[in-house]
């Protein structure tokens, strides 16, 4: 009687292919995790260990001196607030105009307007920066954080609208149609029917837009002054001043990017679920 139990040869083969597969997973994930761990390792070691050769991999004992050093020698508190204001306000504006816009474009099938957001995606960031820089000089906004907030709309508004279009196109239209037949205006159907359903889409769009704004370097680098620069610009400035102080540099890098990495883990499913199919990326 033959049962479902495979022969030893087949089992060995299956075992070998499983081991091979595990190895492949390990190989493709390791560059990502190793670079992140190396950043963590550098930030937790003293300067002697950091420039030792051969390198010291595991901090023993780990020290938080680098993080304290970053806050003592730089005004990271100010830069942190700047980054928070810039990505927060630019995302808030993107939500206010982007939710109705995404709804309107999805419902009206206004593909030409969607193409506009795509062209905005193709255009190099510097080509916005030069004219807006001149404009801000003319109207005297330099020296405040507002020019940075306004230029960040170039990133946040298209990303957010793009996410919302995708979201509203996938929302079943039955409920709104029922509302329209019951005599709701288009605005009411949007406000009381579609908007409450759009919450998850808004959350994902907002997180992506905050991340891309938070990560942006070039706008803040050109438009930010001593007190208005954002975190990535502040970290870049540390590089030019502290050549071989790797501990504080890595600590600063980690401080900037840790909030983003944590947010990413939260919306990991949505990112994988195809939001990036259109190539959402700031730039």
């Amino acid at each position, binding site marked *: 009687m033959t049962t479902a139990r495979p022969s030893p040869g087949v089992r060995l083969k299956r075992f070998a292919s499983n081991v091979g*597969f595990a190895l492949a*997973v390990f190989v493709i*994930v390791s*560059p*990502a995790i190793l*670079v992140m761990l190396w*950043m963590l390792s*550098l930030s937790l070691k003293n300067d002697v260990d950091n*420039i030792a*050769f*051969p*390198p010291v991999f595991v901090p023993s004992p780990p020290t938080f001196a680098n993080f304290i050093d970053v806050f003592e020698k730089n005004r990271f508190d100010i830069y942190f607030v700047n980054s928070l204001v810039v990505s927060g306000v630019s995302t808030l*504006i993107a939500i206010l*105009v982007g939710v*109705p816009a995404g*709804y*309107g*474009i999805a*419902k*009206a*099938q*206004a593909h030409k*307007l969607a193409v506009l957001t795509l062209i*905005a*995606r*193709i*255009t*190099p*960031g*510097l*080509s916005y920066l*030069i*004219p*807006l820089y001149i404009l801000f000089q003319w109207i005297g906004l330099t020296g405040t954080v507002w020019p940075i907030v306004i230029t960040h*709309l*170039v990133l946040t*508004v*298209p990303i957010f609208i793009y996410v919302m279009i995708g979201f509203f196109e996938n929302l079943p239209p039955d409920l709104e*149609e029922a509302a*329209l*037949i019951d*005599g709701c205006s*288009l605005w009411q159907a949007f406000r009381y029917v579609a908007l409450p359903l759009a919450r998850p889409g808004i959350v994902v769009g907002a997180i992506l837009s905050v991340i891309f704004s938070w*990560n942006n370097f*070039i706008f803040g680098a050109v438009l930010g002054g001593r007190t208005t620069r954002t975190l*990535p610009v502040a*970290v*870049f400035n540390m*590089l030019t001043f502290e050549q071989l102080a*790797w501990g504080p*540099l890595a600590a600063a890098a980690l401080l900037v*990017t840790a909030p*983003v990495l944590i*947010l990413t883990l939260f919306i*990991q499913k949505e990112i*994988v679920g*195809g939001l*990036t199919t259109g*190539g959402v*990326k700031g730039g």
Partner: protein
Amino acid sequence: MTEASTLERKVASAAKAVSTRGPGFDRNYLPFVYPALIITLAVIVFPWIFTIYMSFYDWKIGHAREFVGFANFTKLTTDARFIESIGHTLYFTALAVVLPVIFGTIAALIFNERFPLRGLFRAIFILPMMATPVAVALVWTMMFHPQLGVLNYLLSLVGIPPQLWVYSPETVIPSLVAVEVWHWTPLVMLIVLGGLASLPTEPYESARIDGASAWQMFRHITLPLIMPFILVAGVIRMIDALKAFDTIFVITSGGPGTASETINIYLYLQAFSFYNIGYASAMTMVFFALIIVLTLVLLYLRQKAKWT
């Protein structure tokens, strides 16, 4: 009476709104778009138009501007540094498209399988593309250090002599490409993974009945079906690689010398180090045209791949 007629009108307009759904453009929804349109006009369309205007002027910040017609554009054709930067950009872009597309496709095939902790591994895999570019660039700068960097130590373990990485004109662009590959392979993986998820199961079943091997099924079913997604990933990767700025600027600023100076880096220097706003605007337009043309070429190739 009037109440009834307003109700009638309401129903009629609602019915019209419902019936005009579907294919075609519905004007009634335009007001929803207006606020976003105003912002888009201000921060996106206005800069485009103003860039065109500036490109016809000899315009240096802090100096009087002077209309020069197409002089900025003719100057570009004789600017050796600009022409050199085009070469660097194309070299960088070619590598930074092909390698992530290959690695990303392989990674997508792996993540398309079911295995324990897949979600966690996938989350770790996509972390690089979300990480702050300046932070990423800083860590790689330290890793590239010729005497103390961890990369040369790792090479020494397998008996390869130490490299100069970004400190040598010969290896600077491939080294920067390594950072770019690390940074953006996840985006390719996600796009191709989306394609793999949409594959039908029937062709595989009939192929299995016909006794096809795993490789044959991949080569003749999977690959042709996900080709459109791979090409989309290639187009997006090309646009981003042409525009790459942050990591190059932080790690080398175009150096050593001008060995890694791409169009975008040279453009930045012209605009915000030399303050030649007019000249930089002309360069922006040529750069933008280059991006559009290369994108259209790739999209044309994609279209062709679809028909054959």
